[in-house]
């Protein structure tokens, strides 16, 4: 019984890791007070999604999807999710850039980058 569960876990290893990463990212977003750490959490969350896409694209024993000469065939992995994730990586980088530049301005204006302290600074007139 335990052994079966273990093999099930191993055979779906990537997906479990995607879930774990996603939860780590969400935890950082919710629990961390430092704005930079929140951004790191956001990045971990996005990375988990990349891992999920790349995992389901994989075919056991598959090779890179390169056009072969006429007559030869090969088992290759699905290229579409990889391409989609290239786009998603660009989106993630842009989001991070905007987030970091907002944090830079926050730290210039208020001299803090911590959510709690920010709340205190905002209370003052």
């Amino acid at each position, binding site marked *: 019984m335990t052994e079966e569960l273990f093999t099930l876990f191993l055979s779906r290893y990537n997906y479990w890791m995607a879930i774990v990463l996603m939860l780590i990212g*969400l935890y950082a*977003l919710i629990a961390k007070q430092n*704005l930079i750490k*929140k951004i790191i959490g*956001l990045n971990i*969350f*996005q990375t988990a*999604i990349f891992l*999920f*896409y790349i995992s*389901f694209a994989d075919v056991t024993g598959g090779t890179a999807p390169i056009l072969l000469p006429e007559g030869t065939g090969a088992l290759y992995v699905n290229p*579409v*999710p990889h391409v*989609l994730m290239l*786009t*998603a990586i660009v*989106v993630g980088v*842009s*989001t991070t850039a*905007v*987030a970091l530049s*907002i*944090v830079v*301005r*926050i730290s210039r*204006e*208020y001299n803090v980058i911590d959510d709690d302290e*920010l709340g205190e600074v*905002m209370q003052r007139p």
Partner: protein
Amino acid sequence: MNPVIAHLPVLLLVLPIIAALLILLAGMVNRNFSYPITLATISFQFASSLIIMVSVMTGGTIHYYLGGWAPPMGIELVIDAFNSYVLVVILAMALLIAVYARRGTALDIPPEKTVAFFVVFQLLVTGLCGMTITGDIFNLYVFLEIASISTYALVASGRNTRSLIAGFNYLVLGSIAAGLIVLGIGFLYVATGTLNMGELAAMLPASYGLATVQAAFLLLMIGFSIKVAFFPLHLWLPDAYTESPSVVTILIATATSKVTAYAMIRVIFSVFTLQYITESFPVTEMILVIASIAIIAGAVLAIAQDNLKRMLAYSSISQMGYIMFAIGIANQAALEGGLLHILAHAVMKGCLFMVAGILIYRTGTTAIRQFSGLSKTMPFTCAAFVLAGVSMIGIPPTIGFMSKYYLVLGAVEAGQYLAAAVLLIGSLLAVVYIWRVIEIMYSGSHQEETLHTGAEAPLSMLVPVLILAASCLFLGIFVDVPLAIIEPAVTLLLGVG
């Protein structure tokens, strides 16, 4: 067909992106060049959207294959009755906002930042157009992120330093939402192996029972609910609307929220189908209950506000509830009401937020209690507020009345009398929060010591406000005009035709 018109769907996206770069380059030469280029580009987009709508009305749905690659290999742009209508609404709003922005940005945006502001503004409008006309679900996500990232930057762009925190919180929640959406899209791809919306709709029924598809549906719904600020996932909205520059508030309250609601309706009805949400995976009841709570809670919270922009923000949460309400009822009359409410809310809320922007521009305050006697010095602005406010409450013959009338009709047809009562209670609560402002504006004396100047707004700000206020009235009287476009759109969505 004329070759230029045949390629108009893609020109609508590509030319404005080039124009955004052009704005940046021209702005480097001279800061004053950036505004005219923005205005010209958005005018071009509005004109093209009208041409596209006419050709959809006469020639049926347009399928445009990008680069000539037919789906499933390539990305497809699909324009039918539904999205040509949404396209015209948001571009008309964007054009009026662009006119308004000439003076409207002066207060909030430092002069050296105007070039960057208009570049991002143009990118946001283009992202919204892309979301509207794409026929590929992953492409929808990409354009959603173009629009969202532009919005985060715009929200945080003002002189008001509190806008930075509002922008950051919006960015965090918006990115989580985008993550959930892309995860949902991944699940759909696993279940079907395609990303084209038309093919998804054709292939999904075979796997309706799969947990994968149900998970995909829920992930997409939660993601879009955060993006449209559907109660109780609205927490980013009040701060983002209140603290951001006036022009940005108007744009995100009208164009962005409407297009996101459009995307949600598109995913529910065109990718999944009416049959799925009512039979295979019944969620309409739940959407109806949450929408009813949103209508009441948003309105009650709006009553409690003293800041005009914050009050309108909570009112937006209530009004988005009306659009979701239409999804919950999901019959012909209710969806007609919901789609009409997309137009109605864009027009009314655009007008109200523009008035709020003018009041900040002229008096420097958003505190409602300081507006006493404003009607004497700013008669046109206040009159526009009254017209749009009356429409918001839903007094005939305004557009706000017509959309709510169809919603109530749909609810009664579906036998949901309690839900119909919620709509009426929502309207009554709207009376409380709108009337309070009107009463203060029109009664009492002008307090010179609290208000700096009391002059009427500059013409370039006043004209868009008056056009929108007049539209509240005339679209209500001649409601047949928008309904002529909405009816085929609803038939298409429900898949009856």
